[in-house]
């Protein structure tokens, strides 16, 4: 084993096993998809994250192009998957662009946030 490979091996051997299983939560995928187009207005927005989420400090908000908040303000973690966050939507006004703003706290208290849009098209 070369010296560089030996160093890499030692690093992984020492650091990874003692690490605690938590990290910044990144968006893995969403429904509707990030930047996606849907033909029927969704009843909720779901976002899958890379880490388990702390529900008390996490939220998804959905806005129209005028900046009016449309979601039902009922962000909640999925009962069977702690890395999946939901927010319910009322019947949306119709075709158009909608902005999703999320902010989550992973279980190790790291905060991450982001936003994306999706479109409802006829």
């Amino acid at each position, binding site marked *: 084993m070369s010296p560089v490979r030996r160093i890499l091996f030692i690093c992984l051997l020492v650091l990874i096993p*003692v*690490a605690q299983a938590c990290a910044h939560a990144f*968006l893995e995928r969403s429904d509707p998809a*990030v*930047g*996606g187009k849907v033909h029927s207005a969704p009843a909720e927005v779901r976002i899958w994250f890379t*880490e388990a989420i702390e529900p008390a400090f996490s939220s998804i908000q959905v806005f129209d192009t005028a900046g009016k908040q449309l979601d039902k303000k009922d962000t909640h973690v999925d009962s069977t998957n702690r890395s999946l966050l939901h927010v319910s939507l009322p019947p949306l006004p119709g075709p158009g*662009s909608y902005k999703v703003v999320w902010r989550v706290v992973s279980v190790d208290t790291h*905060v991450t946030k982001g936003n994306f849009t999706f479109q409802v098209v006829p």
Partner: protein
Amino acid sequence: MMLSAPKTASAHGFAGSRFFPATLSTDDPFVADEFSLPTVSRIVTPDGGGTRDTEVSSDIALRITPKWDIEFGETFIMLNPSQGKAVNGFGNLSIGSKYEFFENDEHEAVVSLGLGVDVGGTGSKEAGADTFSTWTPGLFFGKGLGDLPQKWSLLRPLAVTGLIGVAIPSSARTDGSPNPAVLQWGFAVEYSLIYLQEQVRDVGLRAPFDRLIPLVEFSFSDPLNRGQSGLTTGTINPGIIWSGKYFQVGAEAVIPINSRTGNDVGFIAQLHFYLDDLFPHSLGRPLFGGTR
């Protein structure tokens, strides 16, 4: 002036919804808890008619407060001249500190001040370590383009980080050779596929490709005085970083901008650990002032 690995730890960080990786060749503005081991670089310098300079370095940065850190770095240098005997040895210990004094989440912007010192006499003179200390105050910046209008949305994953500083030697001459003050500047242009997938458009990338950040780094040194003005050296380094939960790996080609810098394309590669994610309740949090 020879190419050298980063003198202090590069940092990963967030500005608003933007994640910035730790860059390999130019330091960025973020204050963080992290550990690089190893950073391996190789380039053929013009010294002695052509010398293969291989360096293996390690850096660690630990936060004192959420906005202020202290950094230590050490490098093992292997010089293999085309003529003559190869020499190995440690470079000087580098110590640095950085303070992040401006952050604008909406515009994904960060600015920091830093001070690094290459502690003279702590390394091997045979391996090229200076016998004098060099102090380098610097300004560091980072800016994501996430605030571009929607019609430019595919450019929103772009970001730039960079630095400008002056390396000031504590001795004007060594063994008859001048030691000029040197303007050190550089920047990195990166296109984050993480940002593209998370915030712009799900283009269907899945692991591990959704964690890639292609980038190009530009690193330059301009001597300012003592008869050395105009003898610019520098490299252009295209490469890629993969960022995972606890660590990132990156590799770049190192392309000299002129024959003063080098005679061939080299490389730099790094394994970099995020201590704040590995040890969020101990080593990976500031000594004072919360977690952030």
